[in-house]
């Protein structure tokens, strides 16, 4: 056993270093240093995106095959870190509020520990490591969801999240145990030899999948999503909706193609059912939602269904379009949540759709960004979402799922409807008392600006996709 292997995991180790730095700073810093806390965290985390890309990209296998990394995984890590950085940037105002100010450090630490968990999920080539990573990614999130200690909704969301999460992980472990029982190994690379597609393994696979489906929030494993999203602090919701989802999707892709390759027909059928259910049911829910965060929860379920379209083929093209989709989804969704966070602060309460009425009059820039972000989510050109959706459809079509693509396309029309409802509220519906003009702080501005750039440029500037495509497989 060579302990230097630990230091080969540069992204994880450097993130842990940041983690420790924050912990120490939290302990020692007082007074005016504390005011710089947020800036410091941002300054630490943003360069880390670069670190992930630059130093994590070397293909290597560690710990006897438990840990694996390559440039694609490094890119994923970088993307997740980038997303986390955006979330942290947006969190500034919330962290300054009375009840959270004193536990600012906890927020960073919890958030970063989930990020570490996700790193391990991405790099895991062994179910144990994967399980540990996944729990590390979920548990602190439960704390984050319940972060607003004095708000009942936050606590309710937290308990729902944690209970469902435990239930899901129990189900998943149950599945893994049978996989272990039938194949005798927990290494991804070895397990494939023992996969035969027997009913027991199908059972095991679906149980295992339900655990990941919970994280990705696919129908019918999605029911916690809306409640937790609504109850959690908006920043946490944003994080839940993109980052933890992105990591889970990527891992799922790896496991399905690496481990369950002999059962392709089975899991494709499974995904088929789940995609149709996710997209359709989430859309039906979303139509009726007026609470904006809840609405975004259903939107994210439906988006998850679209991401799965890239997974279902299991092809290289699917991989690149999936990663690309996640990237685009991160910027678009975070833009929406950033705006919700901002106007929530102005309204001091939960945002329902009617609160957006006439928003354009008072907050033209925010509304415009919101519109672009929603258009991007709906897949309207020339914004990035159009490209990502198109590529996802292409990959599914390429894999032969023509009818599925058609169903998904019909659903995009429904999704466009509910996204447009918000646009309509902002621009068209008259309102005598719109939310007054909100001034964003610097951090939020940076974050929203980055999102805006991403929404506009990620699609048109094809080098992003080309770059991702080069890294695939």
């Amino acid at each position, binding site marked *: 056993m060579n302990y230097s292997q630990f230091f080969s995991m540069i992204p994880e180790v450097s993130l842990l270093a940041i983690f420790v730095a924050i912990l120490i700073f939290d302990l020692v810093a007082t007074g005016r240093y504390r005011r710089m806390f947020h800036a410091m965290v941002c300054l630490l985390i943003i360069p880390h995106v670069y670190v992930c890309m630059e130093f994590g990209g070397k293909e290597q296998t560690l710990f006897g095959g438990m840990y694996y990394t390559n440039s694609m995984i490094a890119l994923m890590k970088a993307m997740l870190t980038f997303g986390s950085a955006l979330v942290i940037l947006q969190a500034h105002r919330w962290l300054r509020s009375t009840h959270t100010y004193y536990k600012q450090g906890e927020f960073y630490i919890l958030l970063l520990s989930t990020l570490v968990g996700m790193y391990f999920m991405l790099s895991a080539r062994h179910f144990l490591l994967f399980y540990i990573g996944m729990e590390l990614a979920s548990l602190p999130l439960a704390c984050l969801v319940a972060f607003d200690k004095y708000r009942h909704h936050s606590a309710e969301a937290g308990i729902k999240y944690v209970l469902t999460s435990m239930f899901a992980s129990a189900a998943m472990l149950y599945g893994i145990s049978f996989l272990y029982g039938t194949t005798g190994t927990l290494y991804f690379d070895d397990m494939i030899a023992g996969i035969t597609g027997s009913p027991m393994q199908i059972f095991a696979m679906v149980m295992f999948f339900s655990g990941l489906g919970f994280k990705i929030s696919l129908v019918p494993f999605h029911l916690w999503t809306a409640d937790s999203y609504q109850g959690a602090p908006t920043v946490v919701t944003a994080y839940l909706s993109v980052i933890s989802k992105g990591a889970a999707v990527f891992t799922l892709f790896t496991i399905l193609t690496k481990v369950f390759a002999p059962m392709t027909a089975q899991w494709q059928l499974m995904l088929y059912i789940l995609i149709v259910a996710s997209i359709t049911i989430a859309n039906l829910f979303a139509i009726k939602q007026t609470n904006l965060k809840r609405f975004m929860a259903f939107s994210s379920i439906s988006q998850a269904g679209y991401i799965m379209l890239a997974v279902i083929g299991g092809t290289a093209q699917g991989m690149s379009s999936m990663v690309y989709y996640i990237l685009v989804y991160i910027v678009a969704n975070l833009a929406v949540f950033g705006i919700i966070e901002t106007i929530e602060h102005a309204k001091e309460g939960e945002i329902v759709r009617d609160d957006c009425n006439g928003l354009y009059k008072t907050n033209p820039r925010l509304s415009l960004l919101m519109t672009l972000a929603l258009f991007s989510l709906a897949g*309207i050109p020339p914004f990035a979402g159009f490209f990502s959706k198109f590529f996802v459809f*292409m990959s599914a*079509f390429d894999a032969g799922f023509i009818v599925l693509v058609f169903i998904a396309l019909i659903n995009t029309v429904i999704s466009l409807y509910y996204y447009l409802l918000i646009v309509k509220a902002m621009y068209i519906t008259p309102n005598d008392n719109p939310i007054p003009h909100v001034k964003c702080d610097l951090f939020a501005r940076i974050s929203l600006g980055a999102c805006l750039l991403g929404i506009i440029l990620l699609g048109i500037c094809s080098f992003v996709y080309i770059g991702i495509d080069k890294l695939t497989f």
Partner: protein
Amino acid sequence: MNILNLFVLIPLVMLFALWLCRNIKQIRTVMVAGSTLLLALSVYLTIDFIALRSAGVTAPQLYCNSWSWFPSLNICYSIGVDGISVAMLLLSSIIVFTGTFASWNIKPQTKEFFLWYVLLSLGVYGFFITTDMFAMFMFYETALIPMYLLIGVWGSGKKEYSAMKLTLMLMGGSAFLLMGILGIYYGSGATTMNIHEIAQLNNIPTDIQYIFFPLTFIGFGVLGALFPFHTWSPDGHASAPTSVSMLHAGVLMKLGGYGCFRIAMYLLPQAANDLAWIFIILTTISVVYGALSAISQTDLKYINAYSSVSHCGLVLFAILMMTQTSCTGAILQMLSHGLMTALFFALIGMIYGRTHTRDIRQMQGLMKIMPFLAVGYVIAGLANLGLPGFSGFIAEMTIFVGAFMVDDTFHRAVTIIACTSIVITAVYILRVVGKILYGEPTNEEHKKLSDATWDERFTVICLVICVAGLGIAPMWVSDLINSGVGDIITNLRP
């Protein structure tokens, strides 16, 4: 530097400039400068294109260029124009130009209006210059979505409902379309997205064509107001502000016909030949049904919208006849309908802006009150019902003569049925003219109204000149279009 890129670049620059504008004067300057530039550009392009053609350049597409965009998916940004696209670009420029003047006094949020307006025209231009299916589809959708806000914010009546319906139906259409595009791409072996290369490969298996031809055709057909997917059109047009109606009926609906021709028919020739009869029936219904519906409408814009259904139905009808002449006629009809409807909607908008009603039962004797607009309306009406000397006549005649060249009973029968629309058109046009323009003005309020202002006169005169110009001297357009149509027809009827 390819001249065609300017068609995308100028709107982009305009968008940027508009974003920086501070007052209405600057906005108008930007708009006028930009749209004039575009108009000049497309006129130059037309002249240059004709010159090149007469100099003996026979390549199907001119000004071709291609930049790899998403190489792993064979997506390129390829541009190139043939006669059809040149004609369409010219049409778009004219409408964008006149539309700018027609929305001279739009309020409120002038800047935003023009931002979306320019984005829309960007999509339109992009659609016509590109030859890559992906890029075409992208521009196509880019052109659709601004409609929502343009109608929703600046429209009138039940604008929210209409805008939503229009957007969703068109997006539903583009869902079909996307299926079609993917089907074509993968059916042809997934080697290229360029329509001309696919057409040359000509290797899509027939059974695949049978699936994707209807999808593609319906996809574009929704925008081309194909029965029974046309119902967005009356509501949408009725609610839209003037210049948006102009642009929408004038140019956007042409995207449908153009796409049907350029993608559905061109790339899926086998299925087009075998399945055309289904759509011929639908389009024939469109033609007659739209016209008959228009007769009993009472809202000016509804009348015109149904008239558009009828006329755009004729475009698709002609395309499906698949003869050189009828397809040339289809393109002519697109041009002509684009100009005429734009003129019509402009006038309706101006009248509505004064009377604040579009109900024909509440207006009378406008000829005495606003003679300029009334005369304009009569001219537009006469052009619409296919009076020789205006563009509608040549387009319709070319279509009918072309359609009659298909020598079998079915085609003959539907052609004759479609011909009846010229009578029905006369009925509803004259009904309106008689009701609102003639007679003694009865409404006291209306008697105080004024005639057109200079910007309105300018819009109307420009369009009338275009309509009449096309109608009196059709040869050059016909020549322009002919070669482009020929290539596609050759592919359809080997």
